[in-house]
Structure formats: C-alpha cells, structure tokens
C-alpha cells in the first residue's frame, strides 16, 4: 500500500461519519463511501501530495452524494406518472421517510435543505473551520454562515433544545 492509501485508511472513520451525516442512513452512508473511495482511487492523480487529503476526500464524498440524489430523483421520475414525478423528483424525503423509524437526529437532519445539511455536517460534525468549509463547498463565507445559522436554528427547534 502506498502513502495515499495509507492516509485514506486513517481517514475512513471520519469519512464514514461525514457520509452518515449527509446520507442520514447507515446503509446509504456506506454505499456512498464505497462509491467515493472508488472515485478517489481512480482520481488519485489529481490529489497533490502535501495538501490536505481530508478536505479533498470530503469534497469527493459530497459530490458523490449530490450525484446519488440526482439519480434517485431521475429514478423517481421514471417510475411515477409525470405530474407526481415532478414533485417527488425535487427531493427524496418521501423515499427516505418510508423506511423504518429514524433516529431523531437523522430525522432532523433529513428535514434540512441539502445545502444546510452539508454545512452542518462539515462544521458541526466534522469540526472544519468556516474558511475550510467555504473553500471545500466553493461558496462565499457569508453564504456559509447564513446556511449554518438557519440550519442550526431549525435543528434546535426540531430537537427541542431551547431552554425550558
């Protein structure tokens, strides 16, 4: 195994956690990680040694998740009558909620917009600095902080964490 794989190996626990925060379901999360690792192995030439592999890899996980959500939306459109497909295709809540009872945190994360969820996952779950998260997502700092604030307010409310 080369340095690249060795370093990836040490990142696996964190990447799994990040995948779980994005996908909100343990099985989906591991499928996502599998796809992301395959993509990373193919694209390893694009990683510059000496730069941060964790951010590089989290970006891949996040992009793979976006692809997965898009293809689910496409599938949902394919299998439903057109007028229904249009609304279901917009997100996959419907599909996910149909599964067994989710953990309260997964459920609350589920109710966020995809944009809020990914900033929460990067900053609050993975502990990235604002600047790192903004760079990874390619968005301005102001956009990052406003998504973060709105996502947090929603989570505090849903998880009933306000002071009694």
């Amino acid at each position, binding site marked *: *195994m080369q340095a690249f*794989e060795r370093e*990836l*190996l040490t990142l*696996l*626990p*964190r990447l*799994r*956690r990040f995948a*779980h*925060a994005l996908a909100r379901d*343990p*099985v989906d*999360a*591991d*499928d996502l*990680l*599998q*796809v992301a*690792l*395959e993509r990373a*192995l193919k694209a390893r030439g694009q990683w510059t040694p000496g730069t941060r592999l964790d951010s590089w890899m989290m970006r891949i996980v996040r992009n793979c998740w976006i692809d997965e959500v898009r293809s689910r939306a496409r599938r949902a459109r394919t299998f439903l009558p057109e007028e229904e497909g249009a609304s279901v295709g917009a997100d996959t809540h419907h599909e996910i909620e149909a599964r067994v009872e989710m*953990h309260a*945190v*997964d459920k609350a994360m589920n109710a966020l917009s995809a944009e809020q969820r990914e900033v*929460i996952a990067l*900053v*609050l*779950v993975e502990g990235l*600095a*604002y600047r790192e998260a903004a760079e990874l997502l390619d968005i301005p700092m102001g956009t990052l*902080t*406003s998504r*973060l*604030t709105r996502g*947090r*307010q929603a*989570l*505090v409310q849903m*998880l009933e*964490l*306000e*002071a009694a």
Partner: protein
Amino acid sequence: MMTIDDDMLMAFADGELNEIGRARVERALAEDPSLRARLDAQRRLRARLAAHYTPVAEEAVPERFRALLETGVVDLSAARAPRARPLWQSAIALAATLVLGLALGRTLLVPGAPDSGPIAVEGGAMVARGSLAEALDSQLASAQASNAATRIGVSFARSDGRLCRTFDSAAAAGLACRTDTGWQVMMTAAGSGGQRGEFRQAGGESLLVQQAAQEMMAGEPLDDAAERRARDSGWRRGGASR
C-alpha cells in the same frame, strides 16, 4: 444593551471570532440571560450531534473498505448491488482475486519463458497466448467438447463494439476482449481447476468473471448464430451483426 445576532453568537460558539468580537459577546452574555439561553441551546445541539455521530467514527470500519484500499480492486458486485450481497460472498470474491495474483505470478507468467503460459504481458497489457488464444479464436460456446481444456462461457459486445468472451480452464478463468492484434485479457481469476458441474457453478471465481462480464456488456450476450458470425468474421468490431 448591545445586540448580538445569531450569526455572531454562533461564530462565538464555534470559536470563529477574533478577540474584539469575543469580548463583545462575552459582555453581552453577562448582561443578557436570554442570550445565554440561546448559547446554551447551541451547546446542547453540539453535544447532541456529537452523541449521535461520534460512535459512527469509533466503530470498526467495515472490512470491504479496508480491502478496497489494500488491493485497489473494486468489488464490482458490491458496487452493483450493495445490499443484495452477503458479506461472505465479498470475502470469496476477494479471496479469488488474491488467488489470481498468486496464480499469475507462479504459473502463468513465467519470467523468461513468454511462450510457456496461456497469458503473457505485452506493453503493459495481458494477452492470451497458445491454447487460450486458440480457444478464444475458434471455439464456439454452443459447440464445445465436454473435455475441452478451455471452456468458453459467454460472448458479448462491449459498448465500443469490441467483442469479448469469458473463459475457464484449469489454470485460470477470465475475460478477454478482441483488439486489432489479438485477445487482451481484461481480468482473470483462479480457474476451476478442471472441476466441472455443480462445483464450478458454486465457485466464487466464476461469479467474479460473470460479474465483470455483466459490467462490461452492452445489451445481451451473443446467441449461437451471432457468435458463429462473429467468429467467421475474425471477431472484428460489429462482426456479430448480420
């Protein structure tokens, strides 16, 4: 009283404020109980998220990820149908690829004796030689002797039109595609060791080859007539069509 908006409060909670900002928020917190309550809610949120997600990072990473990084071999079946496949099958598939490495190293690719095995390395690619090349060239899956040394499994066209065939012999099973110069071996696994019948059906190796074929196949496998046409046209691209 100084007003502290949520953005600023959260930046404070995340340690993202500079000294001046921090001092401002601390002063406001000292004066304003409702602000303290909002900060507490944020701290509870962090604790709640940590309680939920930290165990994920602490549990053992599934072996398939470790294996993927250690071998660089993508388990095609796991990629295709991750939920349908029990773990033991992945283990067999992995074992098969490991056996393959040994088999290639020890019996197929004898250094300095390029003509002795069924597979040789040319320009970084594996190519079929000798009896394997012959079987791939001439043997029809629909009409092969039951005691043939190499058995052809399925013939099919790839999306780029090249024709490919799966094979199995005592030494190696695998998948080869026709190029302009010969048969390039795309993947191999341990052969069935001459076993036929039920045992062969149950083997993890042939499963691995079949899955690789499925991944690569554009449309359906060639039927008997198409396979014959393909052979008679020298396996050139599109040679299977009427």
